[in-house]
C-alpha cells in the first residue's frame, strides 16, 4: 500500500498547450489529484463580436493549430445554419473528405509523435529517428498523405484558404483527387503496420464508468452535423447544444468544464466509437475487434486505439468519397450568401471530440454574440476525475511515484488534449 507521494508536473509535454498535473497522496489516501489548465486565454468569443460573418471562419481557424480545418468548418456550418444555407452535396462530400484528412493527420500526429514514445519508453520521437527509423518514416509518409490531401482540397493544411461559407473558393483538379486515391490505396500497408505496432503495446488496465457524448450517426459514422447523443441515453438536437455541454467556470483552470448526466463526461474518438460502432467501415471494425474494443468501453487509454480505428475508417471512407466525386460533373463552387438575423449553431466531430460554434447575428450579418465549445474543455473535468481515480487505484496497488506520474501523464495524453484550443 502506497503511503505518501507528491507529484507535480508543470507544463506537461507532448500535448498541445499548457497544463499541469498535481497528485498528493497521504497515508494511502488521495488528498488531491488535479488537472489544471494554465494556458493563457485568448478570448475568441469576444474578438468576434462586431465582426461581419465572413471574418468568423478565418479568425476561428486560428483557435487551433491542429484542428484548424475543424474550426473553420464548424464556423462555416454555424453561419450556414444561421442564414439557412444548405450546402450542395458536392460541397458536403468535399468537406467531409477534407475533414477526414484532418482527422487522419491529427490522429497520426498523436499516435506516433505524442503517444508512441510513452510505450517505447523514450522522451520523444527524436531518439526514435535512430532507433526505429522505419517507424518514423512510416509516420511521416502517412502524415504527409493526409496533409497533402488537405492542401489539395482546403488549399492549405493549416488555416485552410479555400473553405468558405457557401462552398469553396475553388475546387481541386480531378486528376489531383485520383492521385490522392491511389496514394490512399497504397497507404493501406502502412496503416496495417501501424495497427501491428500498437498491438505490441500494453495499454494500462484502468476503467472508470463514464458518460460518452458524441454526434449521432444516422447513415454513416458522424463527423459533420446531426443529432447529439450520450451513452447515458441523452439525445438532443444540434441547436440545443447548450443543454448538452453545460459549461461552467472553475477557478483552477482557464478552460471551462462541462457536465451532463454525471459530474463529467468524455468526448473524442472513444466516445464516437462507443456511440456509433455499427457505422464503422468493416475494415475499421475488424481492427477494433482485434483490440477487443467494443462499446461501451470505459478505459480512457483505449482512446488511442479508437483513434487508430478511426484512421482506418477515414482512409477507407475517403476512397469511396473520392470515387463519388470523380463520378460527378463539377457544378457550382460557391453559393451566394444572404445574411439574416438570428442564431446559427454548427456541431462537428473534430479529432478530439465534438466541437460547437454558435453565433448570433444582426440583420447585416454582424456577430452580436459568439460561443465556441471545444472538445478538450468538455473533457477537462473528466480528465480531472480520471486522474483522481487513477491515483486512488495506483495507491492501493502500491505503485511507485515514478509509475504514478508516468501513468497520469499517459492518461492525460490519451485524451490528446488540445489545450490552447480549449482556452480559445
Amino acid at each position, binding site marked *: 500500500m502506497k503511503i505518501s507521494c507528491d507529484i507535480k508536473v508543470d507544463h506537461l*509535454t507532448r500535448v498541445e498547450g499548457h497544463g499541469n498535473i498535481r497528485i498528493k497522496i497521504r497515508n494511502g489516501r488521495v488528498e488531491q489529484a488535479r488537472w489544471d489548465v494554465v494556458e493563457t486565454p485568448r478570448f475568441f468569443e469576444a474578438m468576434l463580436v462586431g465582426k*461581419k460573418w465572413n471574418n468568423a471562419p478565418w479568425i476561428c481557424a486560428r483557435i487551433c*493549430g491542429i484542428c484548424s480545418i475543424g474550426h473553420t468548418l464548424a464556423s462555416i456550418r454555424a453561419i450556414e445554419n444561421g442564414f439557412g444555407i444548405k450546402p450542395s452535396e458536392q460541397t458536403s462530400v468535399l468537406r467531409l473528405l477534407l475533414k477526414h484528412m484532418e482527422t487522419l493527420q491529427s490522429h497520426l500526429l498523436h499516435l506516433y*509523435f505524442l503517444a508512441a514514445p510513452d510505450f517505447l519508453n523514450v522522451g520523444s520521437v527524436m531518439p526514435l529517428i535512430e532507433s526505429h527509423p522505419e517507424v518514423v518514416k512510416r509516420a511521416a509518409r502517412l502524415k504527409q498523405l493526409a496533409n497533402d490531401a488537405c492542401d489539395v482540397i482546403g488549399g492549405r493544411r*493549416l488555416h485552410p*484558404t479555400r473553405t468558405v461559407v457557401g462552398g469553396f473558393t475553388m475546387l481541386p483538379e480531378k486528376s489531383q483527387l485520383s492521385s490522392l486515391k491511389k496514394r490512399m490505396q497504397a497507404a493501406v500497408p502502412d496503416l496495417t503496420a501501424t495497427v501491428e505496432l500498437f498491438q505490441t503495446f500494453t495499454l494500462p488496465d484502468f476503467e472508470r464508468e463514464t458518460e460518452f457524448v458524441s454526434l449521432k450517426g444516422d447513415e454513416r459514422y458522424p463527423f459533420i452535423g446531426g443529432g447529439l447523443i450520450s451513452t447515458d441515453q441523452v439525445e438532443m438536437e444540434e441547436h440545443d447544444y447548450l443543454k448538452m455541454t453545460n459549461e461552467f467556470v472553475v477557478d483552477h483552470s482557464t478552460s471551462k468544464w462541462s457536465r451532463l448526466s454525471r459530474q463529467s463526461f468524455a468526448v473524442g474518438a472513444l466516445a464516437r466509437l462507443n456511440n456509433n460502432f455499427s457505422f464503422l467501415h468493416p475494415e475499421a471494425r475488424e481492427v477494433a475487434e482485434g483490440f477487443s474494443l467494443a462499446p461501451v468501453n470505459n478505459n480512457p487509454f483505449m482512446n488511442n486505439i479508437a483513434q487508430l480505428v478511426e484512421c482506418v475508417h477515414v482512409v477507407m471512407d475517403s476512397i469511396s468519397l473520392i470515387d463519388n466525386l470523380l463520378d460527378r460533373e463539377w457544378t457550382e463552387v460557391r453559393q451566394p450568401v444572404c445574411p439574416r438575423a438570428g442564431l446559427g449553431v454548427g456541431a462537428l466531430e473534430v479529432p478530439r471530440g465534438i466541437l460547437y460554434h454558435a453565433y448570433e447575428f444582426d440583420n447585416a450579418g454582424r456577430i452580436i454574440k459568439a460561443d465556441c465549445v471545444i472538445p478538450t474543455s468538455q473533457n477537462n473535468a473528466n480528465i480531472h476525475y480520471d486522474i483522481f481515480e487513477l491515483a486512488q487505484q495506483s495507491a492501493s496497488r502500491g505503485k511507485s511515484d515514478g509509475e504514478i506520474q508516468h501513468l497520469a501523464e499517459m492518461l492525460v495524453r490519451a485524451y490528446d488534449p488540445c489545450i*490552447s484550443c480549449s482556452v480559445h
Partner: protein
Amino acid sequence: MSADKRLYLGVPVERPKAAFFDFTSCEGCQLQMLNNEATLLDFLSLLDIVNFREAMSERSDDYEIAFVEGSISRADEVERLKKIRAQAKILVAVGSCACFGGVNQLKNRFGDLDWVKREVYGSNPVDSTEVRPVSAFVTVDLKIYGCPVKKEEVEVIVTNLVLGKSIVHPSYPVCMECKANHNICLFDLGEPCLGPITRAGCDSWCPSNRMGCWGCRGPAEVANVEQLREIMLKHGFSEEEMIDRLECFGGFSTYLSELK
C-alpha cells in the same frame, strides 16, 4: 544524431542548439515545423533541438537559438520571455502572433479589457493583459512572418541562419508573387485583397487559392494604404471590409490608427 562538424565552402557549420517556445497562440506555427514530413529529417540535422514541449519530454535550457511563437498576454509570459531572451543568442519571432500580436490582438480593439473578460468568463477573474507582440518586451533578432508560417520559407531561413547568410525578406508586396503564379486578380473576380500592400514571401498562398489576402505578413516596405482604400471603394468594398482585413493580424496597426 552526432553533433558532427560540417563545412560549407571551408567554413565550419555548427549545429546550433535550438529551442521552441510557445506563448499565447494556436501553436500552429510549431506544427508547421513538424509538417515538413518530406524534409523533416534534413531539417532536424541542421538544428540540435533541445526543447520543444509540444513534441518532446526532454528539455534543456542550454540553447543558442530560441524560436518563439505566440503573442504576450499575461505577466508570467513576460517573465518567461525575458528568461528566454537572456539565454538565447538569437531570438526568432515565429508567426504573426509573435511578430504583430496575431488574431489575438483583435481583443485589444475594444479598449475595454474588463468587458472582454466578462464576455467570455462572466464574473470569474481571469488574468489577461492587452495582447502585445514579442518585440514589445524583448529584442527580436529575426522575424518569420505568416499565419501560419510557410515551411519552405522557414527552411530557407533556418538554413541561412545556420550558415550565417543574411536573411532578407521580400520587400515587395504579395501581388508580385500572385502575378508570378499567373492568378487572375481577385479584384477582377469581385473579391477584396490586401495583396498590394502586404509583404510577400508566402508565394501568394491565399490569392492562389482564390482567397483575398488578409495581410498576415504585415506591410510591405512600401504600403500605399491610402491608395488601396481608394481601390477598395472603387471596387465596391466598404471601409469596414478593408479594416476587417487590416486589423486581423495586427501588422497594420500603425496604418489603422491613421485610417480610423
